[in-house]
């Protein structure tokens, strides 16, 4: 683990990604304590304020402190994105590995179904699921997880196919092991590295997808300090105070870039040939 960290820090992408993601995680954990104001307190006399010493990032249309809203919203945005991608990764990894293990006709059947599902764009898929299940943060999380599953299944299967050909899997089959043991204990641990890389990159997509869903009014509901929702709400007041839309957009971009860089760095660090 320490070795991995050292290798990550050696590449500029890895180091920067680690820094950005580390910073985000700190915000997720201690954000609410750092916030100078209550994110939902209206101050009608302080509306549309630009950044100042009193309000570092300015205030919004109800006079709420934007910095406090961002700090509170980190949990809703980043944490949800991580959970959603983890959910999609786990489901996709299981389906992909099982499909590679079964092989032959079952593999064809599973993968063609996955292909069919994949032909629906993930945003459209997520919209469909949220509309069916109803508007809420939890349903949005579920929707993103499901929308990510086919892609992850595809990536995992391609890795698992090479693992499937290894002799230790043959040895387990010859020994008479059950399919469940082979998939969980022999194959999954050996496909983890590329999947983790893929997952970190997907977190960035999840943040944006979440923001998009909230922006469309299908994710978090007002007055939640979710970043996508903040962008959506401030859109109408852009000409009154551009700061309102700038800060949450910047925050979303930073998370997306951070996770992307982290994924790049991880990919290089986990590949022994570099």
């Amino acid at each position: 683990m320490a070795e991995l960290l050292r290798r990550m820090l050696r590449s500029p992408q890895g180091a920067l990604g680690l820094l950005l993601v580390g910073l985000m995680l700190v915000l997720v954990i201690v954000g609410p304590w750092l916030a100078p104001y209550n994110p939902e307190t209206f101050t009608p006399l302080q509306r549309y304020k630009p950044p100042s010493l009193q309000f570092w990032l300015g205030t919004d249309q109800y006079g709420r402190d934007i910095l406090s809203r961002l700090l509170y919203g980190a949990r809703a945005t980043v944490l949800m994105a991580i959970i959603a991608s983890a959910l999609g990764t786990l489901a996709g990894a299981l389906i992909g590995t099982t499909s590679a293990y079964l092989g032959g006709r079952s593999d064809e059947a599973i993968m063609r179904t996955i292909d069919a599902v994949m032909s629906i764009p993930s945003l459209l898929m997520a919209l469909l699921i949220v509309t069916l299940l109803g508007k809420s943060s939890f349903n949005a999380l579920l929707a993103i997880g499901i929308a990510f599953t086919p892609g992850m299944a595809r990536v995992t299967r391609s890795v698992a196919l090479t693992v499937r050909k290894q002799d230790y899997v043959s040895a387990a089959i010859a020994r008479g092991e059950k399919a469940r043991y082979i998939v969980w204990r022999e194959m999954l641990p050996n496909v983890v590295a590329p999947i983790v890389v893929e997952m970190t990159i997907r977190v960035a997509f999840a943040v944006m997808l979440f923001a998009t869903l909230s922006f469309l009014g299908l994710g978090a509901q007002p007055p939640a300090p979710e970043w996508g929702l903040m962008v959506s709400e401030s859109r109408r007041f852009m000409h009154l105070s551009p700061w309102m839309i700038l800060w949450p957009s910047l925050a979303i971009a930073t998370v997306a870039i951070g996770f992307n860089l982290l994924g790049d760095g991880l990919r290089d660090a986990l590949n022994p040939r570099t």
Partner: protein
Amino acid sequence: MDTTAPILEVSGYSLDYATPAGFTRALDGVSLGIAKGEVLGLVGESGSGKTSLAWAVMRYLPAGAKESGRISLAGKELTAASPAEIDAIRGRRIGMVFQDPGTSLNPTLTLGEQLAEVLVRHRGLSRKDAWAEGEAMLARVGIQLPAAMMRRYPHEASGGEKQRVVIATAFACQPECILFDEPTTALDVITARQILDLFAELQDETNVASLYISHDLAVVSSVCNRVAVIHRGRIVEQGPIAEVFAAPRDPYTRMLLAAVPRPDRRVIETVPEPRADALLEVDKVSVIYGRKPFLAALLGRVNTQFTGNREITLAMQPGEILGIVGESGSGKSTLARALTGLHPFEGQIRFGGRPIHGIADMDRAYRRDVQIIFQNPDSSLNPRQRVREILSRPLELYGEPGRGADKAAIAGLLEQVRLPADFADRFPHQLSGGEKQRVAIARAFASNPRLVICDEITSSLDVSVQAAVVALLVDLQQRHGTGYLFITHDLNLVRQIAHRIAVMYRGDLVELIDVGDLAAGARHAYTRSLLAAVPAPLAA
């Protein structure tokens, strides 16, 4: 010029590679010289620095390499030469032939283009002349239809043909010195023999100074004039072949020579009693690769299925060691996969008198009694599991009920293969190749099997390690009375340990013969050519 002066001279050459943990010494004070027309064999085990020396001579070292000493080619100092000078020397004055022709040729260029390129680059021929010259070269190295071969891509040629093209390329510019890095290791026995014959012929004709790198002492003894033995980057012994092999002075050379398998030195004395009830009977077992194409039948296309085994019939007594030999693609491993239920088969197997018609009939008892050990321990041991977990699975599945896989049971298994008990906490990558293969053997013996299928289990190991693993197998056989199906391509080795030998060729079992009868008696033509191709065992 003095004819006895060496063409290639390496003196006091040391090489260190930079690793995250500091410098590691790859070569240590190496000194050797090769005169015109001489073949110097460089033998050593994996990791001894053989290939590093070849790269050092070719001046192709990684950025972190640190060197000292001298390498000179006909008086020209190579360590001090500029990159432009090296470019002019490489391929022109020093040629190189690699181990695997499958990877040393570019798959996207025709063989002719790759050969002509060298001639255009180094001999200044026009493309047309180079092409004609290339054809002549291919004819010289024994290619039947050189004009057609020039237009083929590497995947359209066999391994032997590809290696002939690589050799033609190396000889194309009449270099003064050629480095051969295990040129026959990736080839089948009979093809390897032909390549060695070709090498000897070209060597006589061109009088080039050759460095022949190999781990195979028998090959070295048949093609080289002099030999240098390298061990951990240091040349421990050097001299004429006959002297070094007849009276080795260094203990390492002696150990290496003693480890080479020799058919006359049998390691197994016992003979299984001919009993009426055979342990394993294989009755007309066929294996076919590829799915029956559903669409092809509809469209009337030709069947693309490939036969791995064709109606194999053989029987084994309990405690017998049956050797299976044949070249790659002959169906040896396919039979092993069919017997362990890794591939569906047609026909019938009888194990201990019980008929088995397919994978579905292989129940717990069969799985316990028939175990398999694979060729490459790197891929047969899960890299993410500790030795403890690897060994505990068969114990949990087949061990005494209630006892499970406790510490003592795993220590017992490790002790059986002569490994210390604390290896249980290690991961496979923390073990050497030989140690990994011992763990794989321990795993196979955990269930007390009656038949163990050994699929080329020594071919990825060094000679000395191979000898130890074979001794261990013989010891286990004597202790447990286990039968072995010993699959190998090494005839000398199989003649050392097997009771009977089955010879396979292109999916057919062509001959089943007693080891004792192999030296004399009527034999199948293929067996004869196989025996003739095996490098003669070293003279004692």
